[in-house]
């Protein structure tokens, strides 16, 4: 581009910014109110039938993306730990294969007919039909896009982040196997064990069981195991007052689509530290689209509903059913220098000194160790070795301040958070919260995320 063209483009950009900038657009609430009003007018004037509102306001302007990237950069350890606790405490029971799809579908219909209004029952019926359709599957491959960071936890979402591709391959016959993948993170269950590899930290974690889902991929497995999804959504709809609705519309392919919309509420305060960091910690609008003839799930969109507006967070629109999956998909080769997650923290000779620390003191000691480049000391607060990249990046830091610890209202998370501000050797200042959790065996605080 020459100078003249560059100047032309600058002028054009200036004009567009002046005419159509972010502040010259209605907010999400205004959009919703206005569209509802227009729909009502058209119902009155033209006798049209109510239909699913599909407008979505534009995503709110990202607050500081660079801050967010820094925030998420080295949280793989926390993610890994959360995944481990998830395996132990949640996934086997929560998203397990306890019910067959058909049985679940029947149960759902009973629940819906007994306890919910007509619209909700109709929505449940469509989902149950989808569950029956999925019961005949031998394999499924889902490919969607999620607003998240490439290396982050599979369930972690961030409205400030760009879309990343996320995939799930699941083989039901002859043996259950699966693989979940996003740009810097992959999890594989090969029929014998379940393995997680985080590329950015060269960190691996192996569970010696063939977990039906693991490492916080449960929410993604739901779309391949719709009976569990429906059970979950309906139970929550009844217990928490979530609303469900059903609409039918003509798709781009000319066929009739059944669209089930579920409004979910996480029940967390709007300013909670963990609010909007995963779908189960967010208020959402979930839109499931089914082929009305086959009952098969065709698409899923999940919108985050925050005080700043509504943002499309997850878009699943590529679903392959019963396509053979190459066996190599369920194999994962690890680098020879991979860093393995420690299942247990070792007892130290001077363990009592560390066990007696307050969370604030532990945070201070952890950062001080990085300041001195004392990696052995830092690893007393970790469940994995410090990798070379982290050493280079944050070694020699300077602690500016350590704040008071606090808990999230999400009682499923047993750790706490300590605010901190540090200055890296390159002069960059990081202000964030470190997540600490107390190890039951040693009594020591260890870094569960928000640090490095």
């Amino acid at each position, binding site marked *: 581009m020459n100078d003249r063209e560059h100047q032309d483009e600058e002028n054009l950009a200036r004009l567009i910014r002046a*005419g159509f900038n972010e502040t*010259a657009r209605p907010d999400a609430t205004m959009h919703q109110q206005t569209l509802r009003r227009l729909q009502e007018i058209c119902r009155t004037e033209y006798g049209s039938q109510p239909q699913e509102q599909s407008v979505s306001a534009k995503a709110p302007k990202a607050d500081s993306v660079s801050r967010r990237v820094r925030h998420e950069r080295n949280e793989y350890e926390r993610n890994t730990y959360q995944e481990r606790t998830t395996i132990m405490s949640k996934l086997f029971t929560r998203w397990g294969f306890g019910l067959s799809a058909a049985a679940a579908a029947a149960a759902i219909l009973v629940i819906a007919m007994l306890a919910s209004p007509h619209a909700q029952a109709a929505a449940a019926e469509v989902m149950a039909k989808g569950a029956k359709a999925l019961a005949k599957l031998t394999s499924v491959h889902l490919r969607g896009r999620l607003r998240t960071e490439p290396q982050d936890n599979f369930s972690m979402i961030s409205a400030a982040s760009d879309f990343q591709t996320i995939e799930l391959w699941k083989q039901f016959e002859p043996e259950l196997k699966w693989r979940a993948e996003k740009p810097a993170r992959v999890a594989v269950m090969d029929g014998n064990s379940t393995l997680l590899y985080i590329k950015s930290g060269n960190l691996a974690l192996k569970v010696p069981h063939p977990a039906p889902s693991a490492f916080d991929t449960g929410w993604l497995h739901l779309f391949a195991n719709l009976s569990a999804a429906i059970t979950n959504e309906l139970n929550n709809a009844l217990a928490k007052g979530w609303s469900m609705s059903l609409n039918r519309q003509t798709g*781009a392919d000319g066929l009739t689509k059944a669209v089930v919309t579920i409004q979910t509420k996480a029940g967390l305060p709007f300013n909670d530290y963990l609010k909007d960091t995963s779908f189960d910690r967010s208020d959402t609008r979930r839109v499931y689209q089914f082929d009305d003839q086959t009952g098969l799930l065709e698409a899923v969109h999940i919108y985050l509903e925050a005080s700043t507006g509504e943002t499309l967070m997850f878009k699943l629109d590529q679903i392959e059913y019963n396509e053979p999956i190459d066996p190599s998909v369920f194999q994962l080769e690890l680098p020879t220098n991979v860093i393995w997650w420690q299942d247990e923290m070792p007892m130290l000779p001077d363990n009592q000194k560390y066990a007696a620390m307050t969370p604030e003191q532990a945070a201070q000691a952890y950062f001080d160790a990085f300041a001195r480049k004392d990696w052995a000391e830092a690893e007393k607060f970790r469940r994995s070795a410090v990798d070379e990249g982290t050493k280079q990046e944050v070694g020699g830091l300077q602690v500016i301040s350590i704040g008071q610890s606090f808990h999230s209202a999400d009682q499923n998370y047993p750790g706490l958070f300590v605010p901190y501000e540090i200055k890296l050797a390159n002069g960059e200042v990081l202000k964030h919260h470190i997540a600490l959790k107390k190890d039951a065996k040693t009594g020591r605080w260890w870094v569960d995320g928000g640090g490095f």
Partner: protein
Amino acid sequence: MSVAVEDLEMPSMALEPDDDPALAKRVAAGDQSAVNELYQRHADPLFAFILHSLQGSRPEAEDVWQDTLAAAFRALPSYRGQSRFFSWLCSIARHKIADYYRRRNRTTQPILLIPPEELTQLMDEGPLPDELINQRETCLRVVEALGQMPMDYRQALTARYSDGRSVEEVARLLSKSYKATESLLSRARVALRAALAQQPEMDL
């Protein structure tokens, strides 16, 4: 079996402004999905047009915008496609804006009631009235030109230049390849320049 369905959020992406008369007919025939499509296509630029017309007064712009849309959707059967749909919307908006000023003028405090010492406080070093008018006229022309462009042109231009996204980010936003997005932006720039060049005194 492979299923790839259309974007649920933006079903009208493929539609060009020339489809507006057809959409309007569908609304008037009771097709509720067309209400959403027509709304998604024109609501944002119409708001910008009204906001600039009202010199950035947001609460008033919201009221006028809603009234304009309501009036337009009630009057859809009278829209025959003689003009661009967005131009038709803007003409209704101008009437609503004129109504707004008439109402406001009835209640505006006469300037002579403001004490002379306070008048000096109202002066600042911002743009002169003529400059403000020129800026507003420019904004209105840009918005009107953008409002008449195909949806994908407008989305690409605003994402790239108003929201400041990189070409790569725009490509991801529109689910297109980098090259296709560059090409789309190039065509959109040409179209916008052409639309603006038809208007007098636009410095490109």
